[in-house]
């Protein structure tokens, strides 16, 4: 800018001169004197018709030469002593809520479809247990930030990208795909498009019957980077509140209410033209909610910009319907997320080094940096996407971070009776955490917990200085892993040792051995409202429990699961009762690995091979004539594992969930291929750069005259138009300019405070 814009409140813009910057680069920038100037005043223009305070002032420019060392009134420059130079931090705290994939902080599960490449629906009756997803409806959205497709029918361009399918079994009641119900949100990779549907990387459920639809959302394979390079356009979200209106909603050309009162999410009114006057709205997706937030109509056709082109809105819900419309736009950049594994997944096949071909292996060194190499087989890094070459001044405020994972079905939900959970998603926070110090990384951190009460457990860490959240909870990581084929978490197995109580059996646990155990569950392959959702194979519990053999054995390995940690695991008869949401298990197997105590150096070093899936002693299937396992039955069951059980176990393999070690073409989906955190993050961003404040006063009796030649007897005040800051050698190292001349007379006491932020 050339001239300072005059503002009603005076502020002073200080800038280092060329010399000042040069001295700063050498670390020798010092402030010793301030000289006040009124050289930009022409006092002869002062009149009853013009206030000299309205004068323009030139912005400080790079060079400032031959500036007099005296003030405008002829007095010597103001010496800057320690009292005038105040050093400290400029503390600026900003509350941030990044919700790149969701619409609002109040409805955290409402997916912002403007971030999708495409969205669509598939009839559950067409889900036949193959990897083929037939398309019923589809809308290409393609945010400008992505620009993936050429037109609204360019479905081919979805190939190679990710698709999140929000599964639920057949049901008579319609499911709100933007609501809080515990849908099974699974991520697949699209291999091909044949004009009618997508081929995915693995098999889908086999619902086969039913009239309802599931909804799916296509996201970019390359994750957060396309969004990061996109425009800064923001997503506009509107609620249309139609006051005093109880009839059906109408489209252009039909009679209807003369207009609507429109309110944004925060309740402030928005000027919005009447909907029935043919006004074109820049929207791509319409969702109608009642005031209570219930979805009543969804026009996910995406391409219309004119309400008249939308299919008839149909009958309204009665008084005061609410609309939500959201336009395309890049919006908030997603937080990056990488889940790095430094060892093969348990049950993987292939070379020991297979993990090096998993995704996110580039972050292996980072995992080491934090000292997570001993007990963490996997670690998730969730980080603020930003340019690397900016000077980082921000950090997360201590105990201010909360992660919202709307699609995760967290196992610790004390508010629900087992199997009766009706709302999915969970939040994780460090708000109650103390501050800890990571002596390996030499950084402070706080603990990310799954709640704020005394029973909360740690799931990760918040490294404030890095603006990074590290997820260490293995089950949370598993549920966020695309390849795991589940979005629900499982509780850990509790292990203990006991004398074998069955005659003729020998205990498993020997004193020189260490035993590692977890479990895997499966569902039947075909949907049945009485017995299975048909999600079939999904990843074993990521939490590996450990117990060492003790002298006096061998003892039987005892295992059981804690009560009330299966909120979304439905029992027989409940598969449809909760709108087809949640999951079930038809089989349960304990996985065990025995190793020499001397060879054990941490969970993260236990190799992937040699794990046994137990079918006797470690299996829980069809117990008590249940067609599907009930949480109560499972958690009440005490597993007793003997040497014979272990010997009879088969080698555990991941099967279809095996990591795709080499393939990064369109068909590949492996562990670690996640690149963004699919959720929202609330945090306080703290910016506290160093600053120097130069403070000095203009006393009432000072600076009331001037050597300025235009100053005359009719002038009553002087005006400051510039402040020059000198160093020890009387060189100008900084120039401060007010936005308008600062008036000074005998009645005015003025204190200057000039801030220089580093």
């Amino acid at each position, binding site marked *: 800018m050339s001239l300072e*814009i005059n503002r009603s409140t005076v502020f002073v813009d200080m800038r280092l001169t060329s010399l000042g910057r040069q001295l700063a680069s050498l*670390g020798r920038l010092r402030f010793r004197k301030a000289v006040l100037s009124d050289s930009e005043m022409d006092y002869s223009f002062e009149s009853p*018709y013009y206030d000299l305070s309205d004068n323009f002032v030139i912005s400080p420019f790079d060079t400032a030469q031959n500036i007099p060392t005296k003030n405008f009134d002829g007095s010597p420059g103001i010496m800057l002593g320690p009292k005038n130079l105040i050093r400290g931090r400029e503390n600026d705290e900003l509350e941030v809520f990044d919700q790149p994939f969701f619409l609002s902080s109040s409805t955290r599960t409402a997916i912002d479809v403007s971030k999708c490449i495409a969205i669509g629906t598939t009839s559950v009756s067409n889900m036949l247990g193959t990897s083929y997803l037939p398309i019923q409806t589809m809308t290409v959205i393609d945010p400008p930030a992505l620009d993936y497709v050429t037109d609204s029918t360019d479905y081919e361009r979805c190939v190679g990208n990710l698709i999140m399918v929000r599964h639920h079994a057949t049901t008579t009641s319609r499911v709100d795909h933007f609501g809080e119900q515990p849908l099974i949100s699974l991520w697949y990779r699209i291999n091909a498009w044949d004009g009618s549907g997508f081929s995915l990387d693995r098999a889908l459920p086999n619902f086969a019957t039913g009239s309802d639809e599931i909804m799916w959302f296509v996201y970019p394979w390359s994750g957060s980077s396309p969004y990061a390079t996109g425009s800064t356009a923001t997503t506009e979200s509107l609620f249309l509140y139609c006051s005093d209106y109880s009839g059906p909603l109408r489209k252009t050309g039909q009679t209807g209410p003369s207009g609507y009162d429109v309110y944004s999410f925060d309740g402030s009114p928005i000027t919005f033209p009447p909907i029935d006057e043919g006004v074109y709205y820049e929207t791509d997706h319409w969702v109608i909610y009642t005031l209570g937030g219930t979805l009543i109509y969804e026009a996910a056709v995406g391409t219309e910009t004119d309400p008249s082109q939308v299919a008839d809105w149909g009958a309204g819900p009665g008084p005061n319907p609410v609309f939500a419309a959201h336009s395309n736009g890049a919006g908030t950049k997603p937080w990056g997320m990488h889940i790095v594994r430094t060892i093969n997944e348990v049950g993987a096949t292939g070379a020991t080094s297979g993990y090096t*071909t998993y995704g996110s292996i580039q972050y292996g060194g*980072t995992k080491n940096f934090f000292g997570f190499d001993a007990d963490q087989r996997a670690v998730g890094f969730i980080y603020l996407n930003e340019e690397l070459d900016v000077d980082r001044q921000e950090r997360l405020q201590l105990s201010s971070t909360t992660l919202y994972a709307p699609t995760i079905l967290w196992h610790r939900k004390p508010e629900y009776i087992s199997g009766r959970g009706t709302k999915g998603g969970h939040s994780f926070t460090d708000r109650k955490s103390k501050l800890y110090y990571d002596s390996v990384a030499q950084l402070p951190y706080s603990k990310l917990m799954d709640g704020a009460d005394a029973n909360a457990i740690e799931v990760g860490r918040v490294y404030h200085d890095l603006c990074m959240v590290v997820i260490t909870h293995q089950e949370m990581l598993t549920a966020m892993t695309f390849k795991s084929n589940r979005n629900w978490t499982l509780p850990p197995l509790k292990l203990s040792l006991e004398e074998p109580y069955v005659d003729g059996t020998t205990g498993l646990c020997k004193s020189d051995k260490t035993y590692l155990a977890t479990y895997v569950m499966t569902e039947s392959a075909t949907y049945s409202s009485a017995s299975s959702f048909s999600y079939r194979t999904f990843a074993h519990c990521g939490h590996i429990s450990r117990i060492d053999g003790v002298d006096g054995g061998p003892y039987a390995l005892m295992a059981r699961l804690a009560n009330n940690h299966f909120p979304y695991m439905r029992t027989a008869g409940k598969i449809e009762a909760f709108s087809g949401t949640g999951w079930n298990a038809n089989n349960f197997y304990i996985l065990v690995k025995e190793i020499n105590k001397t060879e054990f150096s941490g969970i993260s070093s236990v190799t992937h091979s040699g794990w046994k899936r137990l079918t006797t002693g470690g299996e829980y299937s069809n117990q008590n004539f249940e067609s599907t396992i009930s949480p109560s039955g499972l958690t009440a069951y005490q597993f007793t594992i003997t040497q014979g059980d272990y010997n009879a176990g088969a080698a555990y393999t991941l099967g279809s969930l095996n990591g795709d070690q080499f393939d990064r073409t369109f068909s590949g989906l492996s562990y670690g291929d996640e690149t963004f955190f699919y959720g929202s993050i609330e945090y306080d961003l703290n910016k506290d750069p160093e600053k120097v404040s130069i403070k000095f006063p203009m006393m009432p009796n000072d600076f009331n005259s001037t050597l300025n030649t235009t100053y005359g007897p009719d002038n009553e005040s002087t005006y400051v138009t510039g402040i020059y800051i000198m160093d020890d050698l009387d060189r100008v190292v900084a120039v401060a300019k007010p936005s308008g001349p600062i008036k000074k007379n005998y009645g005015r006491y003025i204190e200057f405070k000039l801030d220089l932020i580093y």
Partner: protein
Amino acid sequence: MSFLTRHNSVTVHTHLTQEGKKRLADGDLRIERIAFSDAEVNYRISHGSGDTYTSYSSNTFSPSINTITSSPYRRSGVISTNYDGTAPFRINAQDIYSITETIVEPVASIGFYSSVTASAITLADYRINTSLAIGTGYTGWVYNTPSSTNPFGKGPNFNYFNLSGVTAEPPADGLVFIQFIIPSGPDVTAHNEKNIGRYANFFRYSYSAGTYILYVDRALPRYDVASVQKEQPMWFYPLSGYSNWYGSGTTTVCPIWNMNILHRTPQIGHERKTAFEPRINATYVDVDIPVDIPRKSYGSKNISGLVKSFGLDHLPKCGVLHYTNSFSGSVYGDYLMPRETIVDIPHILWHRSGVGGFTGPGLSDRGGLRLVDSGSDIFYDNTGKASYTLLKDGSGPLAQTVGRVYFEAKLIVLTDQELLTALEPKSNRNWTCPAFNIDLVSQTDNETISTSGFTGIAQPGKRYYITYHMVSYPGQGPRQSVPCAQIQTIDGRLGDDGQPMYIRASFPPNSFPFVRPNPVNVSGTGYNCQWVNGLIQEFDIEDDPGLLNLDPFKWRIATQYGVSRLDGGSTTYLSSTFVNSMVFYFTREEYDTYYKYFQMGVDTGSTGIGQGLGLDKALWPGDLDFFYGNVTAKAVRKNYIRNVHFFLDKSDLNTTTNSTYNSGSTYITEIMLLGPDNKIVGVGKPDRPLEKNDATLIDITMRSYY
């Protein structure tokens, strides 16, 4: 003979830590040591099992190509060892030095005109960028609107007309820029937006929604040719251009430059009181306009101090072009590149150039003026304490200086009084007039003087201020405009005959490229002249009030033609050649006896340039606050860079205490600059790990920008 060892040269951007910034703020940032870390390397990943495998990119996997390093973060603490366990390296004082990096970036032409070409833009390439106008439209047909009996511009419809073809109804109050085409001129759609050499100017308007009648601040040109229709293109603009409109955005680049013209003197023969009433017609009996009207009513007083600070307060008018707005970015960097500034003003009819199609006096058919500072020396303004280049109307040796480019302040100052006059809407003209050539002569060849016996005026001890006024024919074309702003002075003396000499005034050759001998010549572009008044004021030298204090109502013109007031007899429209050949003589008799005081609106064919909308909606000189042209420049960004240089020898850092390390190369993931107390004051992170072994030398430069 020996072989060269591998030698990597690496430059790493350094981020000051909080401690470093604190020390910088204290003016005591000392860097004495450098330390290296490999904390973000997991050597096991590349050396774990001995298996051979490839990644998707077919590269052999190693930390150097696949390990991501975190971005620099808020580091703190004391470092006592490198990753190999050795003490941090000491940095020689001479390896810490500051350099300057100057980046010059062209800034695309910014202003109200867009170009039909992307590069090498000429004046002919410019078109009015309609997207910067609030709306566009046309006047109604000039002959029959408002009515055929009282057409456009003709009394009593001096200052209003009907609107036609507007893209949107204009706001109630604003500015309108109109290009005027004579009734028999070219089709409006074929020539609008271009810098055709037509009369074009801004008017302040007042509008009531739905009426489609626009009232403007002063008399419109008159084009009442019976039965011939014509409409005029117009563009609507906001009254306060940059502050409330173009420059109010903080995240978008302001599309225009601003302009303020400070007036220290009133217009010569300023409008009288009645001229400020809604009716334009003035009588010259009510004279009570104060001499200090510029200080009372004119706009742009807010640059008075700025003009004074540059030592330009001796000029009656001074214009400042500045790029002032709320945009938070820096479009023009630290300063403008000297000698690279181009100022284009497509709508101005510059008397010296005759830009485009100039085939002879009075035949220029294209307007526009390009000003450049190329080839200028760099001068230092001791008053303003700033450097500047000269802005000229060309780059050749005969180019005329019209202003200065204060490149450090990113300001352009226009000092040419005639250019400023043409840029000032209230001057009522977009053409410039040449300055008189004046001298003293004892004898004349003037016939009237010969017959009347008029004597010379130039008495010793007297000083004379002289200029002139070109009077337009009131029945056709642009209305009256202000006199030439190039006021000349000359001191009187006696001739060889002992008598006061005559003051002779004439025009430089080829000074009227746009004066037409007929309104329809050259497609009706340009302007016309019916006669020329010589204007003069006389003072005792010792009582000379100076140029800035001349009484605007004391300019004398002759009451008769032939000596200092020249016409073409019965010719209504004087030709360019005729005007150019005029020679004026100022005589004692005319000054003392046959004179009257020049008044706008009285001596200019009865219509003036007053305030047709009344004082509450006046357009005063200086009120226009945006620059209706384009500025092309180059921005200079200057970085001061602190370099810390260090050389890792082949024997350095070839092993590590990293617990995952077994053997082989080591990898650097972080470089830390330490103060005297080994506290980390700066951190640099390579974008991927740097491999180090006993065959590798690394030449590292740690770089910080200021």
